């Protein structure tokens, strides 16, 4: 174990904690930006990432092994040294990328078989190899190779994947050469089936890992199922270890998951949406490519203290995003600042005993008409946070009818109260 996790404050299930890693001491809840091929984040320097407030960044094992190669990284002293990033790093197992990027990737008991993108030769990524590569790269947190299936798939494949994930975690643990400086996180699988999820949680907790991730979500499942799986897993995972929901995501999702007791998140969303000219703002998303932006002299977000909002107008950014890669660089900067501030707000509001107020404020700005989605209602109920004042109750008779025992579901859209 190469980390320390201390809960500093709580509100029901939500916690604000200090996560001490070999390279950096972090505050959770936190969002981790995802590095692209060079483990850089769309043109941002490590200097800028520090200024923005990024605490941990994610390196893509698959890409790094392809170029420049994990052995080279190890020879040159590890990824921290190679890219000159002084804070924390997390690498994924490489499995997910392969399955999503490579057409002929296939999963067997041995590992993930795929066609090398370089010369088409058949190759195999085993749990041992994944851990070996990640040992070379040297990140503070490394991820077990799991058998990940999309939540939109049903049937026996999900059960198979869950049990295989448990078998593979033992192989990962055995192969891990640097447990004193790198933390191996296990990943909970099991699709949307609570029984399978429960088995997987227990199995991983038995192995006494430094931290746990909730995997297999953020893949197109409906939101109602999504939050229930997160709620179930956070309830079953140990209190004193970090919980990482992989692939999340939208600010709303992060707020909900934090309310349910999760600590860490990663997603390509903020940087990817920047590339398409969208900026994250408290109200939601601002699309810089819109014609209306061409003459808008305001910053992206007047309340944002980041370098981009302090120096550039929407009009100028509109000009850039339609023509120049610098546009996406500046938007990435802003979007990551937004996510870092969200992380800080979550941590501080829980720590300072005003988490419910923060959540209500957040929802009010995102849903000024009070149309908070039903799944958020449901999740917040479980999280013990009263958000009734953010929602317009008038038109929705659903809850009242439910309480009276009358089923009116056939009249209602499935996930939202209008």
């Amino acid at each position: 174990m190469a980390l320390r996790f201390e809960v500093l404050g709580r509100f029901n299930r939500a916690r604000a904690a200090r996560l001490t890693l070999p390279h950096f001491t972090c505050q959770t809840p936190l969002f981790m930006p995802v590095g692209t091929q060079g483990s850089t984040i769309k043109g941002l320097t490590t200097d800028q990432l520090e200024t923005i407030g990024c605490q941990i960044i994610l390196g893509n094992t698959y890409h790094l092994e392809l170029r420049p190669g994990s052995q080279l990284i190890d020879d040159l002293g590890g990824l921290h040294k190679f890219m000159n990033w002084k804070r924390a790093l997390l690498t994924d197992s490489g499995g997910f990328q392969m399955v999503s990027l490579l057409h002929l990737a296939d999963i067997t008991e041995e590992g993930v078989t795929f066609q090398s993108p370089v010369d088409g030769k058949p190759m195999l990524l085993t749990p041992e190899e994944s851990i070996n590569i990640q040992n070379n790269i040297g990140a503070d947190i490394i991820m077990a190779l799991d058998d990940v299936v999309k939540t939109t798939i049903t049937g026996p494949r999900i059960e198979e994947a869950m049990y295989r994930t448990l078998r593979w975690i033992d192989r990962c643990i055995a192969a891990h050469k640097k447990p004193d400086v790198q933390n191996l996180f296990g990943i909970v699988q099991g699709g949307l089936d609570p029984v399978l999820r429960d088995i997987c949680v227990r199995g991983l907790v038995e192995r006494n890992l430094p931290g746990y991730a909730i995997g297999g979500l953020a893949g197109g499942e409906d939101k109602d199922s999504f939050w229930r799986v997160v709620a179930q897993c956070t309830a079953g995972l140990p209190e004193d270890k970090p919980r990482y929901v992989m692939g999340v995501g939208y600010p709303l999702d992060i707020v909900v998951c934090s309310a349910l007791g999760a600590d860490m998140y990663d997603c390509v969303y903020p940087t990817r949406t920047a590339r398409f000219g969208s900026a994250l703002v408290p109200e939601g998303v601002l699309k810089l490519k819109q014609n209306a932006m061409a003459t808008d002299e305001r910053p992206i977000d007047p309340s944002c203290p980041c370098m981009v909002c302090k120096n550039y107008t929407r009009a100028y950014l509109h000009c850039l995003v339609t023509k120049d890669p610098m546009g996406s660089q500046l938007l990435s900067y802003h979007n990551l600042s937004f996510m870092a501030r969200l992380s800080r707000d979550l941590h501080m509001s829980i720590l300072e005993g005003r988490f419910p107020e923060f959540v209500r404020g957040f929802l009010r700005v995102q849903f000024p008409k009070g149309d908070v989605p039903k799944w958020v209602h449901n999740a917040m109920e479980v999280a013990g946070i009263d958000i009734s004042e953010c929602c317009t109750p008038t038109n929705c008779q659903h809850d009242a009818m439910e309480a009276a025992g009358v089923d009116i579901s056939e009249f209602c859209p499935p996930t939202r109260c209008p």
Partner: protein
Amino acid sequence: MELISCLQPNLWASLADEVPAWVNEKRNKTSVERTLRWLDACIALDAASGRNSLGVVVGGSSIEQRKLCATEVSKRNVSGFWIGGFGLGESVEERCSLLNAVTDCLPLEKPRIVSRLGLPEEVLEGVASGIDLFDSTYIYQLTMGGFALIFPIDMVEREMQNGVFDSSAGDSAKINLRATTYRKDMSRIVDGCTCFTCQNHTRAYLNHLINVHEMLAQILLEIHNTHHYLRFFRSIREAIKAGEFDIFWKQFVENRRSQIAAAAM
């Protein structure tokens, strides 16, 4: 001029008919006459009557036309001179005599800018002819090609004192960081360079960034190349102030020649 009044620059160059060195005499003559007419038209339309303008001097490869144009432009109410038509295929020898012909006819107290001369040697020639400002895409093209400037500036300054050239310490003017030889090179682009890139990153990392087509590669390279190039200009200024520009120039060129010769062996 409407564009100019919208953009509100500190300086603007008049619209000109710039022609390359190899056009015929008639075309060249036309370009001079037209450029002067357009200059007058621009000034007439300018709210500040030319106070922030750079009059463009053309004339191709004709010494006579160059002198004529320079003299005529000098008579107008301009605040400086943009010497056009170079970097378009003229020979080095031609360029020197043409530049001198132009600057000889320009007033001393107004700045002269020349476009498209970017190589260090070209800059030195321009400076020798009395040019004050240079604009070119040299740095941009270096960066886009994955090149980093490494030509010694300080060494040349040292050489001015020693008068001895040490070929083993020298190196070519630039390196191509795309090359596999840099895959594991943990040294800085230029040892001791104070730019952000050299203070924070290695050749190996840049090599990787270039090879995976990351935008950060160009950002970091541009920072270094610009920094290095501006240092070169600072050294030129210092050499001129010390009254040693000729030595500086000579040393620089000889240094380059020895390196090229050494590399060829």
